[in-house]
């Protein structure tokens, strides 16, 4: 099978190569990285019959323009409500489409969402670091950010069909404003008033938003004491509060340890929808117990697996 080659005509600031991420290395200062919205990324791959964790491209609201300069392949785009154009003909995200040499693909922000994902029928050639092509933004390790002029090579490229096909956008791929948290592990450093504010007041996304984390605006959650605690592990989903009372939700490229107290931690599955919100959108936190969180994770996982299986089956036809 042949290669398909694309040239990057324009890449926004946060376009990068991602895959399922590199797990198990947080003890060495290395977060998993990988897609901000993991489920949409998986759906783009599954729609092409690929492994859910295969390497693809993450695109922010900065957008991406690619020229196909040789070969042919099929693309899948999932995540957010972006505008996708092939040679000017307008499509939505959540579709698979054939593309061949001489055609141009344009992806730019649309009515909703902050991230979209591009998967290719074939193998995206990417630099690996520690067994993964996921880009760690701070260091640039992994497949890396896309830059204008860069070539992207898809080996073993195949074109599935001439048809443009829709990928059904599941309800859980939409932006999520209600986030489940388990309080802690340092909720003990916060007053009853701060905990109540966290769980009853709205918070708003600020523009201080990148792959490391997202700062929120809302009532001050200043901790009672312990401006800094002995540095300890941070996870994707940790809600850490700096000394001035401002909460930040840590995301895919989070620091692995830090000394700010964590008032709460977001259910892992809620984060995919959370990252699709935009600046000034509101979020509300709801506390659940640890057993409820595990139960919710299992219920969600079962429903997600059903959708994944359906998308995979359709791709097989």
């Amino acid at each position: 099978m042949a290669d398909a080659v694309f040239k990057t005509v324009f890449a926004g600031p946060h376009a990068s190569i991602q895959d399922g991420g590199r797990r198990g290395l947080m003890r060495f200062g290395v977060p998993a990285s990988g897609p901000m919205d993991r489920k949409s990324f998986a759906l783009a791959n599954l729609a092409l019959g690929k492994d859910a964790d295969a390497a693809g491209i993450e695109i922010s609201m900065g957008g991406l323009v690619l020229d196909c300069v040789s070969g042919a392949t099929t693309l899948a785009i999932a995540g957010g409500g972006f505008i996708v154009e092939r040679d000017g003909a307008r499509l939505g995200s959540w579709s698979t489409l054939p593309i061949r040499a001489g055609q141009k693909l344009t992806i730019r922000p649309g009515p909703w969402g902050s991230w979209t994902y591009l998967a290719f029928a074939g193998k995206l050639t990417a630099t690996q670091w520690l067994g993964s092509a996921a880009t760690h933004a701070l260091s640039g390790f992994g497949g890396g950010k896309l830059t204008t002029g860069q070539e992207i090579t898809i080996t073993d490229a195949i074109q599935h069909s001439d048809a443009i096909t829709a990928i059904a956008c599941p309800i859980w791929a939409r932006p999520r404003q209600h986030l489940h948290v388990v309080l802690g592990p340092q909720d003990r450093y916060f007053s009853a008033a701060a905990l109540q504010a966290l769980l009853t007041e709205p918070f708003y996304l600020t523009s201080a938003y990148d792959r490391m984390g997202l700062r929120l605006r809302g009532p001050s959650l200043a901790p009672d004491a312990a401006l800094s605690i002995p540095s300890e592990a941070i996870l994707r989903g940790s809600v850490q509060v700096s000394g001035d009372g401002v909460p930040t939700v840590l995301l895919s490229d989070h620091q692995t340890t830090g000394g700010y107290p964590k008032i709460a931690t977001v259910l892992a599955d809620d984060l995919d929808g959370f990252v699709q919100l935009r600046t000034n959108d509101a979020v509300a936190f709801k506390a659940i117990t640890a057993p409820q969180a595990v139960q919710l994770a299992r219920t969600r996982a079962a429903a997600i697996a059903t959708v994944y299986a359906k998308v995979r089956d359709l791709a097989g036809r």
Partner: protein
Amino acid sequence: MITFRPVADHAILVDFADTLSDAAHAAVLHLDQALAARPCAGFREAIPAFVNLLVDFDPLITDHRAVETHLRGLLDHPAAATSLPAQREVLVCYDDDLAPDLASVARMTGLSTETVINAHLAGDYAVFLYGFAPGYAYLGGVPKPIQLDRKPAAVRGVAAGSVIIAGPQCLVTTLTMPTGWWIIGRSPTQILTGDPERPFLFDVGDKVRFRRITRAEFASGGGA
């Protein structure tokens, strides 16, 4: 007093103390080793820090209660002491242009630059934890006479390989980044080794000594 704290749907934090202590950190390392030797079903990874160990698990396979029970079992039946921590060596060149803060550290501590260097070399260091960025290993053990608070403001663009100190901690940077710590030397030793079998020079708990090298040795990558 050991406290188990749930973290979201997929992790548990085992706290051995609220404040820094050698005993708490030793307990963290001991549990970390015991868990590595006998992981529970659904175990994904553990992250050791100063006074606690975070244990991440797959909530589709296990839950907080089952993981806590397993960890309590490890604590109740401690394994015999395993091998001694590994001793690692880090090379460092203290030449002026690679050590922009050495003179300031000397001035602020009232010592000569040679005395600062010798104090730094005399320290017995241990890797307490990694954090901030890939390969950023926080070494405890900077001798008291050269312990300084960090600078009021960070300096940008500090080269990878810089040997930096603040308070009792020392770090060899792996990326070019801002830092508010004092830059007292430069090391050719690669913490990110590039070796897929052993990608990081240190494990948490390892002992570290610094060895002084000349500029010529630094230029040749440590003369190794």
